[in-house]
Protein backbone atom coordinates (compact mmCIF):
# COMPACT_ATOMS: atom_id res chain seq x y z
CA UNK A 1 0.00 0.00 0.00
CA UNK A 2 1.28 3.46 -0.85
CA UNK A 3 0.27 6.89 0.29
CA UNK A 4 0.31 8.37 -3.17
CA UNK A 5 -2.62 8.73 -5.46
CA UNK A 6 -3.74 5.47 -6.94
CA UNK A 7 -6.39 3.65 -8.73
CA UNK A 8 -7.76 0.65 -6.98
CA UNK A 9 -10.07 -2.11 -7.93
CA UNK A 10 -11.44 -4.57 -5.48
CA UNK A 11 -13.94 -7.31 -5.96
CA UNK A 12 -15.32 -9.96 -3.69
CA UNK A 13 -16.09 -13.12 -5.57
CA UNK A 14 -19.09 -15.01 -4.24
CA UNK A 15 -20.30 -16.16 -7.56
CA UNK A 16 -18.93 -15.95 -11.02
CA UNK A 17 -20.19 -12.81 -12.60
CA UNK A 18 -21.48 -12.54 -16.10
CA UNK A 19 -19.54 -10.90 -18.86
CA UNK A 20 -22.17 -8.31 -19.75
CA UNK A 21 -25.44 -7.09 -18.36
CA UNK A 22 -28.76 -6.36 -19.97
CA UNK A 23 -32.06 -5.14 -18.54
CA UNK A 24 -34.28 -7.86 -17.15
CA UNK A 25 -37.61 -8.13 -18.91
CA UNK A 26 -40.50 -10.31 -17.81
CA UNK A 27 -44.05 -9.14 -18.48
CA UNK A 28 -45.69 -11.83 -16.38
CA UNK A 29 -47.50 -10.79 -13.18
CA UNK A 30 -45.01 -9.75 -10.51
CA UNK A 31 -44.26 -12.39 -7.91
CA UNK A 32 -41.10 -10.98 -6.34
CA UNK A 33 -40.91 -7.70 -4.43
CA UNK A 34 -37.42 -6.33 -3.90
CA UNK A 35 -37.08 -4.03 -0.88
CA UNK A 36 -33.88 -2.06 -0.89
CA UNK A 37 -32.15 0.07 1.76
CA UNK A 38 -28.77 1.47 0.87
CA UNK A 39 -26.31 3.88 2.38
CA UNK A 40 -25.82 7.07 0.44
CA UNK A 41 -23.49 6.52 -2.51
CA UNK A 42 -24.05 2.78 -2.68
CA UNK A 43 -25.63 1.34 -5.82
CA UNK A 44 -27.18 -2.09 -6.09
CA UNK A 45 -28.37 -4.36 -8.85
CA UNK A 46 -30.18 -7.67 -8.96
CA UNK A 47 -29.09 -10.21 -11.55
CA UNK A 48 -31.62 -12.91 -12.40
CA UNK A 49 -30.47 -16.32 -13.61
CA UNK A 50 -32.74 -19.18 -14.58
CA UNK A 51 -31.60 -22.46 -13.06
CA UNK A 52 -32.09 -25.58 -15.15
CA UNK A 53 -32.77 -29.07 -13.87
CA UNK A 54 -29.08 -29.92 -14.17
CA UNK A 55 -28.29 -26.87 -12.01
CA UNK A 56 -26.73 -24.95 -14.87
CA UNK A 57 -27.77 -21.33 -14.98
CA UNK A 58 -28.75 -18.98 -17.72
CA UNK A 59 -28.42 -15.24 -17.24
CA UNK A 60 -31.75 -13.50 -17.90
CA UNK A 61 -30.98 -9.90 -17.10
CA UNK A 62 -30.31 -7.31 -14.42
CA UNK A 63 -32.58 -4.93 -12.50
CA UNK A 64 -31.23 -1.68 -11.06
CA UNK A 65 -32.35 -1.39 -7.46
CA UNK A 66 -32.79 2.36 -7.55
CA UNK A 67 -36.13 2.52 -5.75
CA UNK A 68 -37.15 1.35 -2.27
CA UNK A 69 -39.52 -1.26 -3.68
CA UNK A 70 -39.40 -2.85 -7.10
CA UNK A 71 -41.71 -5.64 -8.19
CA UNK A 72 -40.66 -8.08 -10.84
CA UNK A 73 -41.72 -11.42 -12.21
CA UNK A 74 -39.52 -14.47 -11.97
CA UNK A 75 -40.43 -17.82 -13.51
CA UNK A 76 -42.92 -19.45 -11.10
CA UNK A 77 -42.13 -22.96 -12.24
CA UNK A 78 -38.34 -23.06 -12.24
CA UNK A 79 -35.71 -22.05 -9.71
CA UNK A 80 -34.00 -18.72 -10.11
CA UNK A 81 -30.59 -17.69 -8.87
CA UNK A 82 -30.68 -14.11 -7.68
CA UNK A 83 -27.38 -12.25 -7.43
CA UNK A 84 -27.37 -8.94 -5.59
CA UNK A 85 -24.35 -6.76 -6.31
CA UNK A 86 -23.45 -3.74 -4.24
CA UNK A 87 -21.25 -1.16 -5.90
CA UNK A 88 -19.43 1.12 -3.47
CA UNK A 89 -17.04 2.61 -6.00
CA UNK A 90 -15.86 6.15 -5.58
CA UNK A 91 -13.38 8.47 -7.24
CA UNK A 92 -10.83 8.21 -4.46
CA UNK A 93 -11.70 4.73 -3.28
CA UNK A 94 -11.56 3.10 -6.70
CA UNK A 95 -13.86 0.40 -7.99
CA UNK A 96 -15.34 -1.87 -5.36
CA UNK A 97 -18.17 -4.32 -5.53
CA UNK A 98 -19.45 -7.15 -3.42
CA UNK A 99 -22.05 -9.72 -4.41
CA UNK A 100 -24.30 -12.23 -2.69
CA UNK A 101 -26.31 -14.93 -4.41
CA UNK A 102 -29.42 -16.72 -3.26
CA UNK A 103 -31.36 -19.56 -4.79
CA UNK A 104 -35.14 -19.08 -5.08
CA UNK A 105 -37.22 -22.18 -5.62
CA UNK A 106 -40.74 -20.80 -5.97
CA UNK A 107 -43.84 -22.69 -5.02
CA UNK A 108 -46.76 -22.42 -7.44
CA UNK A 109 -49.08 -19.54 -6.68
CA UNK A 110 -46.76 -17.99 -4.11
CA UNK A 111 -45.02 -14.66 -4.19
CA UNK A 112 -41.80 -13.66 -2.52
CA UNK A 113 -39.94 -10.73 -1.01
CA UNK A 114 -36.23 -10.17 -1.02
CA UNK A 115 -34.78 -7.59 1.36
CA UNK A 116 -31.56 -6.02 0.21
CA UNK A 117 -29.59 -3.81 2.57
CA UNK A 118 -26.18 -2.19 2.70
CA UNK A 119 -25.51 -0.12 5.78
CA UNK A 120 -22.29 0.95 7.40
CA UNK A 121 -20.10 -1.45 5.39
CA UNK A 122 -22.35 -4.41 6.13
CA UNK A 123 -24.78 -5.99 3.72
CA UNK A 124 -27.66 -8.39 4.03
CA UNK A 125 -29.90 -10.23 1.62
CA UNK A 126 -32.95 -12.05 3.01
CA UNK A 127 -35.61 -13.94 1.13
CA UNK A 128 -39.14 -14.40 2.45
CA UNK A 129 -42.33 -15.97 1.26
CA UNK A 130 -44.90 -13.18 1.04
CA UNK A 131 -47.96 -13.56 3.21
CA UNK A 132 -46.48 -15.98 5.71
CA UNK A 133 -43.45 -13.74 6.21
CA UNK A 134 -41.46 -16.90 6.66
CA UNK A 135 -37.81 -16.28 6.03
CA UNK A 136 -36.44 -18.86 3.68
CA UNK A 137 -33.11 -20.46 4.40
CA UNK A 138 -30.45 -18.79 2.37
CA UNK A 139 -29.22 -21.27 -0.18
CA UNK A 140 -26.43 -20.78 -2.61
CA UNK A 141 -26.32 -22.31 -6.04
CA UNK A 142 -23.87 -24.92 -4.79
CA UNK A 143 -26.76 -26.52 -2.88
CA UNK A 144 -28.69 -27.01 -6.12
CA UNK A 145 -29.10 -30.71 -6.83
CA UNK A 146 -28.12 -31.66 -3.29
CA UNK A 147 -31.65 -32.69 -2.42
Amino acid at each position, binding site marked *: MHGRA*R*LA*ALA*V*VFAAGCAGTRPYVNDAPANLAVRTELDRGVRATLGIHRVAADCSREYRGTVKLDRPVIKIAVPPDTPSYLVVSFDTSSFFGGA*RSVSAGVLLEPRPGRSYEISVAYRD*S*QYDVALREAGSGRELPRRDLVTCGAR
Partner: protein
Amino acid sequence: MKTAPILLAALSVLAGCAQNPQNAEEFRQYIPRATFGAKQTYEVERPWQEVAKTFQARAPECLNVSVRTVESGGGSYSNVLATYKPTVVVGASRAELHLQRKLKGNVIVPGKEPEGGNYMLVADATPVGRGRTRIDVYAPSLGADTLVKTINGWASGKNLGCPDMTKH
Protein backbone atom coordinates in the same frame (compact mmCIF):
# COMPACT_ATOMS: atom_id res chain seq x y z
CA MET B 1 -9.41 3.27 1.07
CA LYS B 2 -8.20 4.28 4.50
CA THR B 3 -8.90 1.12 6.42
CA ALA B 4 -7.15 -1.31 4.08
CA PRO B 5 -3.68 0.23 4.39
CA ILE B 6 -4.15 0.67 8.13
CA LEU B 7 -5.17 -2.95 8.52
CA LEU B 8 -2.32 -4.16 6.36
CA ALA B 9 0.08 -2.06 8.37
CA ALA B 10 -1.35 -3.38 11.63
CA LEU B 11 -1.20 -6.95 10.42
CA SER B 12 2.32 -6.42 9.16
CA VAL B 13 3.35 -5.18 12.56
CA LEU B 14 1.53 -8.07 14.18
CA ALA B 15 3.21 -10.46 11.79
CA GLY B 16 6.59 -8.82 11.68
CA CYS B 17 7.37 -8.14 15.32
CA ALA B 18 7.42 -11.75 16.28
CA GLN B 19 6.74 -15.16 14.93
CA ASN B 20 3.30 -15.36 13.41
CA PRO B 21 0.75 -17.18 15.54
CA GLN B 22 0.46 -20.64 14.04
CA ASN B 23 -2.92 -21.52 15.48
CA ALA B 24 -5.91 -19.94 17.20
CA GLU B 25 -4.55 -20.46 20.68
CA GLU B 26 -1.28 -18.74 19.84
CA PHE B 27 -3.29 -15.88 18.33
CA ARG B 28 -5.28 -15.55 21.58
CA GLN B 29 -2.05 -15.33 23.54
CA TYR B 30 -0.48 -12.94 21.10
CA ILE B 31 -3.18 -10.32 20.51
CA PRO B 32 -3.51 -8.83 24.03
CA ARG B 33 0.19 -7.95 24.13
CA ALA B 34 0.52 -6.86 20.50
CA THR B 35 0.85 -3.14 19.78
CA PHE B 36 -2.04 -3.17 17.35
CA GLY B 37 -4.04 -5.96 18.90
CA ALA B 38 -7.17 -5.77 20.99
CA LYS B 39 -9.21 -8.26 22.96
CA GLN B 40 -12.86 -7.39 23.43
CA THR B 41 -14.97 -9.20 26.04
CA TYR B 42 -18.69 -8.82 26.64
CA GLU B 43 -21.81 -10.87 27.34
CA VAL B 44 -24.88 -11.46 25.22
CA GLU B 45 -28.30 -12.66 26.28
CA ARG B 46 -28.36 -15.74 24.11
CA PRO B 47 -27.51 -19.37 24.82
CA TRP B 48 -24.07 -20.20 23.51
CA GLN B 49 -25.54 -22.95 21.31
CA GLU B 50 -27.54 -20.30 19.46
CA VAL B 51 -24.44 -18.19 19.03
CA ALA B 52 -22.67 -21.29 17.72
CA LYS B 53 -25.44 -21.91 15.20
CA THR B 54 -25.20 -18.33 13.99
CA PHE B 55 -21.43 -18.63 13.59
CA GLN B 56 -21.90 -21.89 11.68
CA ALA B 57 -24.53 -20.38 9.41
CA ARG B 58 -23.02 -17.00 8.71
CA ALA B 59 -19.26 -17.51 8.69
CA PRO B 60 -19.07 -19.72 5.58
CA GLU B 61 -21.47 -17.50 3.68
CA CYS B 62 -20.00 -14.16 4.64
CA LEU B 63 -16.32 -14.82 5.22
CA ASN B 64 -15.38 -17.50 2.71
CA VAL B 65 -14.45 -14.89 0.14
CA SER B 66 -11.58 -13.61 -1.93
CA VAL B 67 -10.76 -9.97 -2.54
CA ARG B 68 -8.49 -8.85 -5.32
CA THR B 69 -6.86 -5.45 -4.93
CA VAL B 70 -5.28 -3.83 -7.96
CA GLU B 71 -3.42 -0.59 -7.51
CA SER B 72 -1.40 1.49 -9.88
CA GLY B 73 0.04 4.95 -9.78
CA GLY B 74 3.34 6.73 -9.49
CA GLY B 75 5.03 4.14 -11.68
CA SER B 76 4.14 1.22 -9.45
CA TYR B 77 1.61 -1.55 -9.80
CA SER B 78 0.37 -4.14 -7.39
CA ASN B 79 -2.09 -6.97 -7.68
CA VAL B 80 -2.89 -8.81 -4.47
CA LEU B 81 -5.41 -11.56 -3.91
CA ALA B 82 -6.58 -11.97 -0.31
CA THR B 83 -8.32 -15.26 0.38
CA TYR B 84 -10.19 -15.49 3.65
CA LYS B 85 -10.75 -18.80 5.38
CA PRO B 86 -13.29 -19.00 8.20
CA THR B 87 -13.37 -21.98 10.55
CA VAL B 88 -16.02 -22.64 13.16
CA VAL B 89 -15.24 -25.14 15.90
CA VAL B 90 -18.02 -26.15 18.26
CA GLY B 91 -17.00 -28.12 21.32
CA ALA B 92 -18.81 -29.35 24.40
CA SER B 93 -19.02 -25.91 25.95
CA ARG B 94 -17.46 -23.43 23.59
CA ALA B 95 -17.87 -22.20 20.06
CA GLU B 96 -14.93 -20.68 18.23
CA LEU B 97 -14.77 -18.71 15.04
CA HIS B 98 -11.36 -18.34 13.42
CA LEU B 99 -10.64 -16.20 10.40
CA GLN B 100 -7.43 -16.52 8.43
CA ARG B 101 -6.22 -14.54 5.48
CA LYS B 102 -3.77 -15.62 2.82
CA LEU B 103 -2.22 -13.01 0.56
CA LYS B 104 -0.92 -13.82 -2.90
CA GLY B 105 0.57 -11.63 -5.59
CA ASN B 106 2.85 -8.61 -5.23
CA VAL B 107 3.13 -8.86 -1.50
CA ILE B 108 5.69 -10.04 1.00
CA VAL B 109 4.34 -11.86 4.01
CA PRO B 110 7.02 -11.89 6.70
CA GLY B 111 7.54 -14.89 8.90
CA LYS B 112 6.15 -18.36 8.70
CA GLU B 113 2.57 -18.38 7.58
CA PRO B 114 0.28 -21.10 8.93
CA GLU B 115 -1.70 -23.19 6.46
CA GLY B 116 -4.72 -21.18 5.37
CA GLY B 117 -3.01 -17.87 6.02
CA ASN B 118 -2.24 -15.68 8.99
CA TYR B 119 -4.84 -15.42 11.70
CA MET B 120 -6.87 -12.24 11.48
CA LEU B 121 -9.57 -12.78 14.08
CA VAL B 122 -10.64 -15.29 16.69
CA ALA B 123 -13.98 -15.13 18.50
CA ASP B 124 -14.95 -17.44 21.36
CA ALA B 125 -18.43 -17.97 22.76
CA THR B 126 -18.63 -19.62 26.18
CA PRO B 127 -21.68 -20.12 28.41
CA VAL B 128 -21.93 -18.08 31.61
CA GLY B 129 -25.29 -19.46 32.75
CA ARG B 130 -28.96 -18.53 32.48
CA GLY B 131 -28.91 -18.33 28.72
CA ARG B 132 -26.08 -15.85 28.67
CA THR B 133 -22.87 -16.17 26.73
CA ARG B 134 -19.50 -14.52 27.08
CA ILE B 135 -17.91 -13.41 23.87
CA ASP B 136 -14.16 -12.87 23.53
CA VAL B 137 -12.99 -11.32 20.29
CA TYR B 138 -9.30 -11.15 19.42
CA ALA B 139 -8.48 -8.93 16.45
CA PRO B 140 -6.26 -6.09 15.24
CA SER B 141 -7.19 -2.83 16.94
CA LEU B 142 -6.98 -0.90 13.69
CA GLY B 143 -8.81 -1.51 10.46
CA ALA B 144 -10.93 -4.46 11.54
CA ASP B 145 -13.85 -2.42 12.87
CA THR B 146 -16.44 -3.66 10.41
CA LEU B 147 -15.42 -7.26 10.89
CA VAL B 148 -15.56 -7.01 14.68
CA LYS B 149 -18.90 -5.19 14.49
CA THR B 150 -20.24 -7.99 12.31
CA ILE B 151 -19.10 -10.67 14.76
CA ASN B 152 -20.76 -8.72 17.56
CA GLY B 153 -24.00 -8.60 15.54
CA TRP B 154 -23.89 -12.34 14.98
CA ALA B 155 -23.19 -13.00 18.66
CA SER B 156 -26.07 -10.86 19.85
CA GLY B 157 -28.33 -12.05 17.05
CA LYS B 158 -29.30 -8.46 16.35
CA ASN B 159 -27.55 -8.09 13.00
CA LEU B 160 -26.85 -11.05 10.77
CA GLY B 161 -25.41 -9.04 7.90
CA CYS B 162 -22.13 -9.78 6.20
CA PRO B 163 -19.10 -7.49 6.39
CA ASP B 164 -18.01 -5.89 3.15
CA MET B 165 -14.58 -7.46 3.00
CA THR B 166 -13.43 -5.01 0.34
CA LYS B 167 -13.23 -2.53 3.21
CA HIS B 168 -10.58 -4.57 5.03
